[in-house]
């Protein structure tokens, strides 16, 4: 689960990680009032969406008067912001964060993420703050420092020394401040089951203080049960409504831009089915894993969600029954055709547990538009042909 920048900074503040002062606003009036409350004569107006690259997309503006705060807040609130992370459809901005201006001497990069190879968290840092870290990793990998911290022993002095000397920070006072900053960030990561914390840029001010100018935090979905206060930060408007609806029925759904709707059991086979459709010259319209406990209701729901997408020209149901019994899926398909207007061809391939019973059920139901695929390759080929109107 991801949170907004302003929420990330609330988490930072709780752990004593320095951030600029700021106040969230839902309207231009609130934005101006917030600027007044913060004081000073320069403010940053920042769009709050769950995606990076907001500045380049026009979602972050520097205001030098309250009139400008109003002007920029009016412009940004309600805009559809397109960045390299939102996809071409962009994201609607509901909130702006009004922040005091900062006095920037240097820009650094700092993050804490899980290193899957090392099987422990790593602190990643770079002098190339403000740049996309992927670009830095590609062009100048030597400018990225990685320090693994074993949770069994925690953040030690040497982790801090590797960090500050690696970044070329020689002033004792500055070293102490940055080590303190990093150790607090590590504690935040561990104690809250974070998946990723990224600060880009982390700035050094002319007076030698370190401040998180931006903040991005993601949490492990599997651990949210023990962090109700984090679950409270969830912003439903940032989530795809179809993906959310699907998840309430135990379905894992992700919309894609192709023409063939897919309903599959198991995440790997679901991806493999999309790949097979692609290999045979078709395009998948979605990823959909019906999970291990699929029944008539969830299958019907799956059809409903798939058919909401107007691009869908055929549906491929590909089930290899292990725990999921094929006869249940067959009944689900029949149920779905009663509950939903299934107006496109449905290609069904059922294999594994109770597959012969399932074939019998489907045959007796005599459903229009239903085509049987004998195996994965045959089913995918028929789905591709059906989507092209060739079947």
């Amino acid at each position, binding site marked *: 689960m991801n949170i907004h920048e302003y929420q990330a900074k609330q988490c930072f503040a709780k752990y004593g990680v320095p951030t600029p002062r700021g106040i969230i606003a839902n309207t231009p009036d609130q934005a101006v009032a917030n600027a007044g409350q913060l004081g000073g004569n320069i403010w940053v107006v920042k769009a709050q969406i769950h995606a990076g690259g907001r500045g380049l997309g026009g979602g972050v503006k520097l205001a030098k008067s309250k009139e400008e705060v109003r002007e920029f807040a009016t412009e940004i609130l309600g805009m559809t912001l397109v960045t390299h*992370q939102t996809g071409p459809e962009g994201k609607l901005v509901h909130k702006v964060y009004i922040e005091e201006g900062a006095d920037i001497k240097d820009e650094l990069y700092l993050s804490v993420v*899980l290193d*899957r*190879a090392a*099987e*422990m968290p790593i602190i990643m840092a770079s002098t190339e703050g403000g740049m996309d870290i*992927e670009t830095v990793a590609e062009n100048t990998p030597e400018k990225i420092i990685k320090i693994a911290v*074993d*949770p*069994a022993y925690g953040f030690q002095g040497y982790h801090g020394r590797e960090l500050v000397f690696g970044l070329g920070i020689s002033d004792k006072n500055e070293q102490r401040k940055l080590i303190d900053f990093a150790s607090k960030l590590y504690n935040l990561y*561990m104690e809250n*089951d974070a*998946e990723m914390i990224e600060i880009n840029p982390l700035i050094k001010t002319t007076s030698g203080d370190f401040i998180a100018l931006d903040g991005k935090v993601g949490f*492990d*979905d*599997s*651990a949210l*049960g*023990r962090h109700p206060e984090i679950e409270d930060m969830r912003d439903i408007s940032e989530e795809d409504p179809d993906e959310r609806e699907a998840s309430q029925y135990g379905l*894992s759904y*992700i919309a*894609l831009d192709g023409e063939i709707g897919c309903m*599959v*059991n*198991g*995440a*790997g*086979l*679901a*991806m*493999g089915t*999309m*790949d*097979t*459709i*692609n*290999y*045979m010259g078709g395009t*998948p319209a979605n*990823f959909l*894993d019906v999970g291990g406990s699929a029944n008539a209701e969830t299958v019907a729901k799956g059809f409903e969600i798939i058919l909401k997408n107007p691009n869908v020209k055929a549906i491929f149901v590909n089930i*290899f*029954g*292990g*725990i999921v019994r094929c006869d249940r899926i067959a009944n689900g398909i029949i149920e779905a055709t009663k509950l939903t207007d299934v107006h496109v061809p449905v290609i069904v391939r059922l*294999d*594994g*547990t109770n597959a012969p019973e399932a074939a019998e059920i489907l045959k007796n139901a005599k459903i229009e538009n239903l085509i049987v695929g004998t*195996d*994965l*390759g045959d089913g*995918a080929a028929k789905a591709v042909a059906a989507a092209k109107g060739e079947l």
Partner: protein
Amino acid sequence: MSILVNKDTKVIVQGFTGGEGTFHAEQCLAYGTKIVGGVTPGKGGQTHLDKPVFNTVREAVKATGATVSMVFVPPAFVADAVMEAAAAGIELAVIITEGAPVRDMQAAKACAVKNGMMTIGPNCPGVITADECKIGIMPGMIFKKGNVGLISKSGTLTYEGANQVCNEGYGISTAVGIGGDPIIGLSYIQLLQMFEEDPETEAIVMIGEIGGDLEIQAATYIKANITKPVVAFIAGQTAPPGKRMGHAGAIISGSAGTAKEKMDALSAAGVEVVVSPAEIGKAVSKVLS
């Protein structure tokens, strides 16, 4: 021969009396797996599925001589259960449970390694040696005995792959579902090594997916160490970046962890890489004929 488990392997079930534990323990017993008991704290002394129930893994190991544990406890208790198994001298814990927090698995894996216990999973279908021992949730009937070893991050792709291999007239020695979480137990390299050393296994099918770099490490290992033919499929060529595809670890981060880079690395290592899982059976037939 086979790897990891066989007809003599003594197995206990952690989370034995729960709904999932009961259902799948029953299926495993029906397959012929030597389940010698189970652990449910507070129910020690009872009998379940005609097998003894113990309060702790230590008691169960002492009384039964079990060396393998099949773990079905709820996600929040997985780390505790795995650490208990490690402390009690279990040699292999097969963790079926889905949804264990990553921080917990980090600690559990570190503890297992320290105690010399192997783990498989979590969030996996388990391990099966055809016609001998099934520890997990896979449908046993599709695994016919044969000479192909199978390693997979995905449950249903394991079934798909095994089914195709058997339809081509070959069979499975042992199949291992390693799971698709960010932190997992036994991985490709250790299992490739076991299959290389297993005289019964003549070819290896390796099924991977987007996210992380385990398949890339495996490619390097195969090139240097594996003499048996390997067939591979990587799921997620059509997956969009930044989206978690069902499995917690199946995510392309920026430009890293794509199917293409993994397929290229495996091809370069001499592996027979298929573009669609529908081609797995034919590819096995090709490398074995």
